C-alpha cells in the first residue's frame, strides 16, 4: 500500500514537473506582456514534432536533436511575438487573446497539413534503466524528468534574480514605462521572455513525448490547459508560484486518478483550482493587488 502511494506520488511529481515547466512560460509571459499566451501549449506540440524530425528524418543523435528542438522553439516563440503580438501591444487585452488563439489554430493546422492527423508513434529517446529503492521502483524517465526540470528551475531562478537581463525582466514586468526610462530595451526584454518561455516549453514537450510516445497535432492542448491552470493556481505572474502550482496539480491529478476515478480526475483538478481561487483570489503565491480609487 505504502509502496503504491509512493509510486503514485512519484508519477504525480513527474507529470507535475512537466506542467511546472510549461506553467513557467505562461507565468513569465503574463508577468511581462500581461497577456494569456494561448499558443503556448502548441509550442509544446511543435517541440515534439521538431524532435521527431531531428531524430527520424535528419538522423541526428539525441543531444544535438534536443538542442536543435529547443532552439527551434525559442526562435518560433520570438517570431510569433514579433509578428502577432507586438503590433497589438496597445490594443485591448481581449484582442491579444483572440490573436493568440488564432496563432494556436495556425500552429495546429499547419502541423496537421505537414504531418497528417493520424498519430505517429515515437520511441522515447531517454533510455535510462529503472532504479529500485527498497520496494519502490523509479523509472528512468522519472529520474531524468525530475533532474532536467530541477536544473531548469534552478537555472531560471538564478537567471531572474542574479543576472542583469533577469533584473531587466523583473523591472519591465513591474513598470514598462519606468523601465524604458531607466534605459532598458523593453522590446528586447519581451522577446527574451518569449524565447525563454518557448525554450522551456520545448524541454517540456520533449519530456512529454517521451512519456506518451505518440505524436498528434493537438497533443499540446491538454498539457497547455493544465499548465495554465497550474500557473493560475500558483498565482499568475509569480515564478515560484508556477513551479509549486504545477507540481501540486500533477500530484493531485495522479492521486485522484489512482484512488478516486479516472474520469473524474480532471473535474477534481479543476475543482481544486476553483476552491483555491475562492479562498485566495490571486492564487497561492500571487500578490494581492489593492484597487486604488
Amino acid at each position, binding site marked *: 500500500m505504502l509502496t503504491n502511494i509512493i509510486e503514485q506520488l512519484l508519477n504525480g511529481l513527474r507529470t507535475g514537473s512537466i506542467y511546472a515547466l510549461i506553467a513557467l512560460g505562461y507565468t513569465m509571459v503574463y508577468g511581462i506582456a500581461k497577456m494569456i499566451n494561448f499558443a503556448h501549449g502548441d509550442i509544446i506540440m511543435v517541440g515534439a514534432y521538431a524532435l521527431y524530425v531531428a531524430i527520424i528524418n535528419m538522423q541526428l543523435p539525441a543531444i544535438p536533436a534536443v538542442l536543435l528542438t529547443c532552439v527551434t522553439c525559442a526562435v518560433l516563440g520570438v517570431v510569433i511575438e514579433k509578428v502577432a503580438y507586438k503590433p497589438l501591444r*496597445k490594443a485591448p487585452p*481581449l484582442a491579444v487573446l483572440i490573436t493568440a*488563439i*488564432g496563432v494556436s489554430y*495556425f500552429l495546429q*493546422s499547419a502541423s*496537421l*497539413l505537414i504531418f497528417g492527423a493520424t498519430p505517429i508513434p515515437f520511441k522515447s529517446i531517454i533510455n535510462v534503466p529503472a532504479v529500485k529503492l527498497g520496494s519502490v521502483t523509479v523509472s528512468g524517465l522519472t529520474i531524468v524528468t525530475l533532474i532536467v526540470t530541477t536544473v531548469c528551475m534552478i537555472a531560471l531562478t538564478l537567471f531572474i534574480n542574479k543576472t542583469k537581463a533577469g533584473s531587466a525582466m523583473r523591472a519591465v514586468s513591474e513598470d514598462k514605462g519606468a523601465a524604458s526610462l531607466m534605459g532598458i530595451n523593453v522590446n528586447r526584454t519581451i522577446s527574451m521572455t518569449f524565447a525563454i518561455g518557448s525554450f522551456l516549453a520545448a524541454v517540456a514537450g520533449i519530456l512529454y513525448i517521451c512519456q506518451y510516445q505518440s505524436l498528434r497535432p493537438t497533443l499540446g492542448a491538454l498539457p497547455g490547459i493544465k499548465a495554465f491552470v497550474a500557473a493560475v493556481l500558483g498565482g499568475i505572474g509569480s515564478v515560484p508560484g508556477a513551479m509549486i502550482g504545477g507540481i501540486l496539480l500533477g500530484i493531485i491529478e495522479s492521486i485522484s486518478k489512482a484512488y478516486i476515478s479516472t474520469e473524474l480526475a480532471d473535474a477534481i483538478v479543476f475543482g481544486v483550482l476553483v476552491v483555491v*481561487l475562492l479562498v485566495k483570489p490571486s492564487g497561492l503565491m500571487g500578490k494581492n493587488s489593492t484597487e486604488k480609487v
Partner: protein
Amino acid sequence: MKKKISKGFILEIAFIIASYVLLTILMKSGMLNRQYTALIVPVGVNIMLAVSLNLVTGFLGELSLGHACFMSIGAYTGALISTSMELPSYAEFFLALIAGGVMAAVFGFLIGVPVLRLHGDYLAIVTLAFGEIVKSVLNALPFTNGSKGLSKIPMYSNYQHYTLVFILVILTIVIITNLVKSRHGRAICSLRDNYIASESIGIPVSRFKVLAFVIGAFFAGIAGVVYAHNVGIIKPTTFDYNKSIEILVIVVLGGMGSIKGSIIAAVILTVLPEMLRGADDYRMLLYSIVLIVMMLFNNSEVKERLLEMNLFKRHQKEVD
C-alpha cells in the same frame, strides 16, 4: 401613458420581416444547395450563443471561457426530456427548451455566485475550469451515457423547422437588446465602465453580475437545446473549451458590446469555414490566418489611416 412608436422600431420590425421573407425565398426556391441549407440552424445557434455571451463579456465586461458549458447543460437537459417523454412533438420541444434554459440558468447562478469575488483573467480561468468540470461530470454520469453521449434525439429543430429557429433567434436578440437598453442594462454596463464608481452610487454589484450571468446562461441553454435537436447526437467533447473559444471569437470579432456586430460575425464565421471547404486541407489554416489578420487590422495604423481618409464615414461620426 402615450408611447410614440419610433422610426427605429418600425425599421427593426421591417428588417426582421424582410430577413424572414428572404430566408423563406432562399429555402423554398432551392437557391441554396444542401450544404448551405444545413447551415441555417448552426448560424441561428451561433447567433444566440454570441448574443448571450456578449451580455456577459461585452456589456458586463467579464471574460467568460465557459459558455459552451451552459450550452451543454441545456443540450443534455433538452435531449433527455425529448428522448424520454411521450408528448406531441411541439409540446415536447417547448418543454425541452424551457427546461434546458432554466437548468442552464440555475448552473449560471451556481457558477455566478462564487465567481463574484474574482474578476479579469482569474474569472476567465474559473469559468474555463467550470466548463471542464461539467464536461468530465457529463462523461462520468450514468444517465448521460458517458463519452458515447446521447443519440437518436428527435430532430425538432433541423432546417425544415427554420421558422421556429428564426423566432427563437429573434426572441433572444430582442430580449437581450431590450435588457441592455433598460435600467438594469445600464447598471450592468456601468459595472464594466467603472466598477468602483457604480458601487459607490449604490448599484448592487453582486446582484447585477449574477443577473447577467444567469440570463447569458439561460439563452446559451436554449441554444444548446436547439443545437441538440438539430444534429441528433450530443457528446461531452462537443462542448469543450474550443467551443467556448469559438463563441468568444465571434463576440470579439463582431465587437464587444455590439449586438449587431455579434450577429454579423456569427453569420460570417459560421459560413466562412463552409465556403473555404473548397480549399479542403487548407481550410483551418486559412481560417486562422484570417483571424490573425483581422485582429491585427482592427488594431493597426492602416485602419486609422483609412478612417482619416473618410472611407468609413459613418464609423468616423460614431468616433467623434
